[in-house]
């Protein structure tokens, strides 16, 4: 059992226990009254305007009940203390301790200290010369620490250090005009709340301190004493977590149920934000029908040669029949279909050679429209589409255009088309209220899907390489880790230069192409890749940057895992005849499973939260292209560009739920397996 000794002084207190308990109960009565008043004001507030909304009432009720919590604890602890029950003392201790700490924070706020944090830097900057005094004092302390305790020099040096730091403090206060600071604090006491807060802090501190001394009165056991000491030690962490992490989290959760704009009290809107973001619907369009069409034939100079506007008699078809081409060259066919409000739909365009003219058709390049071929497509708007074919003088051609449309929209009001898939004559239309959210979600998931293998497999290979005992390996480990610690904005700027259409990557590719052509005699064209502007490459470019950054970190994790694999296992495998590959498969991989699991989980979480990479890499386009918009970027835009903080918070919680769910699934299925192996 514990060998903790109770300090005899801890049981001494000038006031009698009963008077301290009485004082605590009186103070608790005040807290009860205050707590009830706060709760009543919350219940009567107009900040939850949607009174008919059940959820609105529920949230208001919950906040009101939380405000009553101190009253409940105060009453409960008072009753128990009257019975000299140890739990009563513990509850009262906790209540007064929390009141004391929160009171201190509030008092510092009333003194105006928090808004002055920027001034700390300024004050330090202005008086930086005098900080040398602290540096010397610190050095003196370090020196004293190195001198044996019994040495006669130790105490004088420590005294010099204290004197120096005191002197520096006085100089700093003098140069910083601290008297005015104290005067300011004094002035804040013209407000009753400052006086009351200070009083509350003192009383709570007195009660808490006094109750601490009454262990024997309440029959405290050594275990209980150790327990509260433990909680006391933990309390800064718990309070810090509650104030700086859990508090803001809960606030953002509440904000997500509101319409919140800067400078205004959030209006409670229930689940409206979530409904808007997540609303999605699937509709099938099958009532495809014919539509008016027109087809125009133009010669190589762009002059109109013939046209057929679909008019009466044949509403589904436009046809230029048996037209004789006047020259050899590229001809253009403009196909148009649609009607107001119905701008999309499939069409087909066919060209038939009725009889040949001057000679064989020998187009200079492969063209999509040829004699005897039907092309199909989907018209995005009534503007139509242009096709080219190659014809020779005297060719007689017939061009036929047929267009169909779907109804303008099958989606409910407020929904926009997210995507559609055509199967035969039917079309599945996916609609959403917030199409950009779903597009950003798709991009984010795709980003993760690419990032995980690209940043983990090479990292494992690299870790195995760096695990060897080659001279200078420490240097390489640092080099590979560097991208992970470099600032994203800085590295993104460099990558933007690399990705430029005339940047180093394209320059390298052009040189390689030229080299291959010169060696093989081929005529492969310079790819001229548009890394940051080609819609199908934008996300991949972002993934490459993120991969480059993540590999270093993942490598370090794998390295740590590899160094935990016992050498004996490799030796045993070697003795059993296993080659390097088999050792890797049967020793390294299984023993690395927990590390691999951790790396995968953290990489996925990082991937789902990606923001800085697309933001910095694609910021040349404002706003950044849809193809590079990730969920967190969407959240940022909604909050800081559209000023919809409630909406942004909802997106944040949806992303949180998604990350939580994915991680949970991984824990359920992967971790168990990892440890089994």
């Amino acid at each position, binding site marked *: 059992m514990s060998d903790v000794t109770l300090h005899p002084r801890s049981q001494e207190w000038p006031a009698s226990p009963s008077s301290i308990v009485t004082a605590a109960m009186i103070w608790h009565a005040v807290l009860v009254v205050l707590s009830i008043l706060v709760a009543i004001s919350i219940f009567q507030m107009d900040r939850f305007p949607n009174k008919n909304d059940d959820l609105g009432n529920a949230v208001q009720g919950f906040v009101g009940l939380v405000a009553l919590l101190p009253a409940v604890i105060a009453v409960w602890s008072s009753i128990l203390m009257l019975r000299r029950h140890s739990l009563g003392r513990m509850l009262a201790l906790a209540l007064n301790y929390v009141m004391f700490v929160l009171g201190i924070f509030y008092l510092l706020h009333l*003194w*105006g*200290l928090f*808004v*002055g*944090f920027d*001034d*700390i830097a300024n*004050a*330090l900057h202005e*008086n930086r010369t005098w900080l040398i005094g*602290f540096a010397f*004092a610190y050095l003196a*302390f370090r020196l*004293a620490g190195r001198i044996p305790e019994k040495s006669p020099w130790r105490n004088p040096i*420590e005294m010099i*250090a*204290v004197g120096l*730091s*005191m002197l520096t*403090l006085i100089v*700093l*206060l003098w140069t*910083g*005009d*601290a008297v*005015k*600071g*104290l*005067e*300011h*604090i004094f002035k804040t006491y013209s407000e009753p709340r400052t006086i009351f807060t200070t009083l509350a802090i003192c009383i709570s501190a007195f009660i808490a301190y006094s109750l601490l001394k009454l262990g024997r009165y309440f029959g405290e056991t050594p275990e209980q004493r150790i327990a509260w000491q433990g909680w006391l030690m933990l309390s800064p962490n718990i309070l810090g977590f509650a104030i700086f992490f859990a508090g803001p989290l809960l606030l953002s959760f509440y904000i997500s149920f509101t319409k919140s704009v*800067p*400078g*205004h009290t959030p209006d409670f809107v229930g689940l409206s934000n979530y409904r808007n973001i997540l609303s999605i619907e699937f509709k099938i369009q099958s009532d495809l029908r014919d539509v008016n069409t027109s087809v125009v034939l133009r010669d190589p100079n762009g002059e109109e040669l013939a046209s057929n506007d679909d008019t009466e008699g044949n509403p589904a078809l436009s046809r230029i029949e048996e037209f004789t081409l006047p020259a050899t060259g590229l001809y253009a066919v403009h196909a148009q279909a649609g009607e107001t409000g119905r701008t999309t739909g499939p069409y087909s365009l066919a060209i038939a050679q009725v009889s040949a003219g001057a000679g064989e058709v020998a187009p200079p390049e492969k063209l999509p429209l040829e004699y005897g071929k039907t092309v199909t497509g989907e018209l*995005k*708007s009534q*503007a139509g589409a242009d096709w080219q074919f190659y014809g020779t003088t005297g060719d007689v051609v017939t061009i036929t255009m047929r267009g169909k449309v779907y109804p303008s929209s099958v989606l409910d009001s407020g929904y926009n088309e997210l995507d559609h898939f055509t199967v035969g004559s039917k079309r599945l239309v996916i609609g959403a209220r917030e199409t950009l959210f779903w597009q950003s979600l798709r991009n984010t998931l795709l980003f993760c899907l690419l990032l995980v293998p690209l940043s983990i497999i090479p990292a494992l290979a690299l870790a195995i390489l760096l695990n060897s005992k080659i001279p200078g390996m420490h240097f390489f480990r640092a080099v590979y880790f560097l991208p992970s610690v470099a600032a994203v*904005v800085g590295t993104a700027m460099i990558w*933007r230069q690399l990705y*430029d*259409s*005339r940047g180093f990557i394209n320059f390298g590719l052009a040189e390689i192409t030229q080299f291959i052509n010169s060696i093989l005699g081929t005529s492969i064209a310079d790819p001229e890749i*548009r890394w*940051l*502007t*080609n*819609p199908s490459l934008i996300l991949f470019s972002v993934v490459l940057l993120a991969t480059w950054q993540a590999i270093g970190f993942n490598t370090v994790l794998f390295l740590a895992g590899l160094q935990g694999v016992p050498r004996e296992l490799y030796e045993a495998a070697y003795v059993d005849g296993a080659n390097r590959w088999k050792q890797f498969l049967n020793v390294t991989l299984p023993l690395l499973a927990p590390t691999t699991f951790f790396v995968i989980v953290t990489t996925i979480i990082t991937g789902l939260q990606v923001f800085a990479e697309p933001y910095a890499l694609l910021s*040349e*386009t*404002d*706003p950044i*292209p*849809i193809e590079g918009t990730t969920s967190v970027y969407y959240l940022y*835009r909604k909050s*800081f*560009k*559209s*000023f919809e*903080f409630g909406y942004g918070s909802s997106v944040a919680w949806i992303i949180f739920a998604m990350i939580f769910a994915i991680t949970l699934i991984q824990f359920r299925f992967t971790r168990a397996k990892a440890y089994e192996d």
Partner: protein
Amino acid sequence: MFKRLFVVVLLAALILPVLPTSAQDEITLRWRTRPDNQAEIDVYQAASDEIDAAWDGVTLQYEPGGSETAGYQDTLITEITAGTAPDVFWIPGTDVARFAKLGLILNLADLAAADADFDVNAFYPQQIEQLTYSPDGSTVLWGIPRDASAFVIFYNKDLFDAAGLDYPGMGASWTWDDFRADAEAITALGEETKGFGMNAWWANWGYFVNAAGSSFFNEDRTACGLGNEATVEALTFAQALYTDGLAVPWGEDSEPGFVAGNVGMFVNGRWGTPNLIANATFNWDAAELPAGPAGQSNWLFWGAYVVNANTEHPQEAWELVKKLTSADIQGKVAALGANIPSRAYSDQAAIDAFLATFDGKVNNQAWLNGLNYGVAEAPLWAGDWSEIDRVYGEEINKVLKGEETPQEFADTICDKVSGYFEAAQ
């Protein structure tokens, strides 16, 4: 024991110097503006100190705003939400409507009316028109313009000489056709050379739209104004610059290419000049933008000093706004080369200070000319500009990358943004 004492002393030394700043008898005003570089920060700080020294009873705190991890506007809006925003701050012209509608900035009309020293006619009328607009017709003044800027064509004289071209031109005589011919000739100089470049945000493609006679919005700015033939004409011209390979691909930063001497012409505002002065090693100058089918066009970019609606010292805040937009301060900022004074009609000294920048080596007059006929970047009172800008941007990306025709754009764009105008909500 000594170590504990040492820690306490150190903490006290860190915290106590904080207090005096908020302990003064004088009124403390915090103000903020977005600077482009450290030199501007230094000038604003010096201006703040100078005003502070001459102003009894008021202490000024200048804050550059923003940091490496948070942009100027993101920081500002966070502080407004938290109730810790400065008394006076700068916002871009496009944000005036949102801030005013949300009640975040003070209507200064009464303070201005009671002030004999203040004259709105000293500023560009396009700016004042926007700052005195109120949807309900009431008398308002939302702020005072900090400065102004316009687009120019920066051109590489060496590339023009190599291509045997005359330098771009003199006002209305330089048309889109001339501009394209110049771009073609410069592109033909070599594989690495492009005739033209501009960056991918609304003002750049918006210039083409305006110069062709179209506009982002209808006349009373309550609906989209891009569904017309002028838009098709503008975008057909702009698209061809890209699809014909005459321009740096849309979406890529054109500035490094221009600074490296590989781009013949580059559209940018006054803010781009210091970088060129510092880094371009070739001969260059600036010219007005080419005239489009509907004549000359440009943007008048601007931002304004506004007063926080929650300031405890509105009168002093108004005085500060006036002092910050005085000809003296504007002249000092303009002398750095990145800003143009907004007091165009009150004090020639500020304008002269601007014209004298860079020792007259740059055609500074091109900006002043552009400002005279520039369309003010204007707040949108009847809709959500942030969302409309997003949709316009997404669609224009398709057009200038050749994925969509200008006609398709004009046919569909107004439907796509209609939901973001108040009339539709």
